[in-house]
């Protein structure tokens, strides 16, 4: 191990203090590869029957341009930002929503204006101020911590196929940048945690966005649910359903047919159970009509509860993220409820949802068409993300009231991921594939109203740039996910995010 890397490893205080001696001895490239940390935490804990926790992964597909999610507002730094991003991408300083982090890293920041509130629809800026949201700077896939010099000198130490959508998505979801993917880190977490709930009626891993790598495990299979509930056999009810179940339950000499019967029966039974749990008239969150929401804070979705763009006031339907998060909230409610209350009685759940449209090589703002930099596809996406996440957090607060569990808000943590960041300079129409990206972590357990990691120097060709404004990450996905996984494994209602998260400084050259 060369000296520079040893020095960097010593800065990863949060992992060492989490008693993960294994991290220092496992492959330096991936702390979460074998999840010994999590395993140790699970072994040391006594997860009781009421100790419920859930993780929600919100995947922003395409590569989110987080350079406009959070913008430096100190005059010299804003000028650097503005000089390079003008005219296509630079958000006017007067439009930014100033935030007041409780920690100081020598910078000042503002959120994109579409992360604020409008007409009573609150957003991420409010959550940040309430201490329920944190920002992680410049996270990305890393096989080794890299300085710019090392990036240029040792191509073999870069994660393979940087700037490629599918490969980076895989590396984010597996947290293994240097080997062929076999499992996702969510799936590996589920495999470890499954032992605490061996009789769970529904899979620990649930996806609202179809099959994904994140939840691939060796023991626990992900269970796909639609935004309207479990997918069941259409038009098969009553006597016909009984007959179908009888047929599937027949003993068959053909092993394949026998297995098919078992899977089919399981799918039907699980779907029936899930739908009855979420729609239960007494304990569930049944929607009696399309105009009534489950909670008094509406989830953005279709009319009349649409996303409102704070800049233009225009409304649009959230076709994916709002309905997905709404169903996740319903499944969390059902998962946390006891079996006696027609729930699943689960202790741990992992959810995956996804929203696309972030691959904005063009149309990121309306400037190329003669419009404003404050409008365009990206502002709509931010408005949707902000209002949907805020509605989700509000739902968690109301579930806490419903279940008379004052700690409930600390049981659910949502976090964002994305393929990669985007280039700092515009390509004239939008932005192109980058690398390091800023991300959001939300929940009652989050040590919020803080920023973590190191904000990159906004200089093209500068010390944090590979070239053309692609930031070399200062925090590896590994570090990001290890903290989340540890939180999921632990019994304590802890604040996982602390100043111990390092990765904010580069190893000495």
């Amino acid at each position, binding site marked *: 191990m060369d000296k520079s890397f040893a020095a960097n490893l010593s800065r990863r205080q949060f992992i060492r203090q989490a008693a993960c001696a294994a991290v220092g001895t496992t492959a330096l490239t991936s702390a979460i590869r074998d999840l010994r940390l999590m395993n140790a935490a699970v072994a040391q804990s006594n997860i009781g029957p009421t100790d419920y926790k859930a993780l929600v992964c919100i995947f922003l597909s395409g590569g989110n341009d987080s350079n406009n999610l959070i913008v430096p507002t100190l005059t010299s730094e804003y000028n650097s930002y503005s000089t390079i991003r003008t005219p296509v991408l630079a958000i006017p300083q007067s439009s930014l929503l100033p935030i007041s982090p409780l920690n100081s890293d020598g910078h000042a920041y503002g959120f994109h204006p579409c992360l604020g509130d409008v007409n009573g629809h609150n957003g991420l800026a409010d959550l940040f101020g309430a201490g329920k949201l944190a920002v992680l700077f410049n996270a990305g896939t890393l096989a080794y911590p890299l300085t710019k010099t090392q990036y*240029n000198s040792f191509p073999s130490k870069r994660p393979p196929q940087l700037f490629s959508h599918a490969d980076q998505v895989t590396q984010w979801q597996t947290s293994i940048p240097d080997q062929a993917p076999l499992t996702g880190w969510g799936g590996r977490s589920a495999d470890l945690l499954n032992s605490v709930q061996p009789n769970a009626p529904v899979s620990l891993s649930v996806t609202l966005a179809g099959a994904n790598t994140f939840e691939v495990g060796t023991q626990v299979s992900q269970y796909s649910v639609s935004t309207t509930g479990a997918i069941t056999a259409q038009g098969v009810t009553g006597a016909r359903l009984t007959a179908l179940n009888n047929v599937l339950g027949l003993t068959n000499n053909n092993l394949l047919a026998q297995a098919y019967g078992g899977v089919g029966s399981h799918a039907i039974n699980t779907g029936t159970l899930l739908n009855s749990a979420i729609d239960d008239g007494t304990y569930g969150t049944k929607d009696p009509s399309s105009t009534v929401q489950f909670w008094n804070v509406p989830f953005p979705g279709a009319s009349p509860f649409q996303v409102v763009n704070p800049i233009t006031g225009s409304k649009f339907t959230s076709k994916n993220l709002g309905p997905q998060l709404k169903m996740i909230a319903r499944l969390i409610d059902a998962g946390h409820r006891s079996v006696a209350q027609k729930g699943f009685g689960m202790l741990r759940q992992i959810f995956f949802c996804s929203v696309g449209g972030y691959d904005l090589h063009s149309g990121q703002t309306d400037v190329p068409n003669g419009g404003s930099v404050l409008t365009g596809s990206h502002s709509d996406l931010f408005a949707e993300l902000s209002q949907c996440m805020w509605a989700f957090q509000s739902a968690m607060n109301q579930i806490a009231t419903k279940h008379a569990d004052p700690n409930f808000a600390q049981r659910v943590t949502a976090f964002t991921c994305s393929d990669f960041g985007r280039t700092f300079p515009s*390509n004239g129409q939008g932005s192109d594939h980058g690398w390091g990206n800023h991300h959001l972590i939300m929940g009652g357990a989050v040590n919020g109203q803080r920023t973590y990691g190191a904000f990159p120097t906004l200089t093209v060709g500068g010390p944090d740039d590979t070239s053309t404004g692609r930031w070399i990450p200062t925090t590896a996905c590994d570090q990001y996910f290890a903290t989340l996984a540890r939180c999921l494994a632990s019994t304590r209602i802890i604040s996982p995010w602390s100043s111990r998260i390092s990765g904010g400084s580069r190893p000495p050259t």
Partner: protein
Amino acid sequence: MRVFVKIVRVLIVAGLVGYGVWWLVKRGPQPASKSPEDSVKVTPTISGSSTSGVPSNSLSPSPAPAKAPDQSGASPLDATSGGVPSTPSQPSKNPANYVLGSPSVLPTNMSPQSVLENARRAIVNYGSTFDGNPVGTNPEITSALNGENPKQIKFLNTDDGMRINGAGELVDAWGTPFFFHQLSGKETEIPPPVPTGGCGPAMIC
């Protein structure tokens, strides 16, 4: 007489040697090869990638750093399984100074569609060789295709209509830099070049 002959021989040999030394010193160091392609040096820009038909955003970036010397003994032939090549050398700033091919001349009967297909084939060949397409900006991909790869293979040929402008960008038949959209390590999308729709839908390679 014999002595005289020997002296003359020595003088002749010495004279020839001396002339040779003088000639080498006066000539100075020369490149190892004089073939047209070897004289090409890809000099990509760091001013940002370009989409087809859209000029690069003008800015004043810091100068590109010099390529750092190999410090660990890692071989320059270390396979990278495709991906971003080593840092290209100092760019020429004038896109008009083509480093491969000519700004105004395409091979005879070379249609724009053929140029696009040949670009696609170059990427496919690279991907087959290194088990993954090149990724990065146009200049980075171009430099990888033009020899800055672990095996120093050049996949670009002027006979195929391949041209590299002074910014190190591979350009289409109209001189507009290609836009390479990396969908995955083995799938790169090349949107249709200008004029719009002239060559049909986007190519996947």
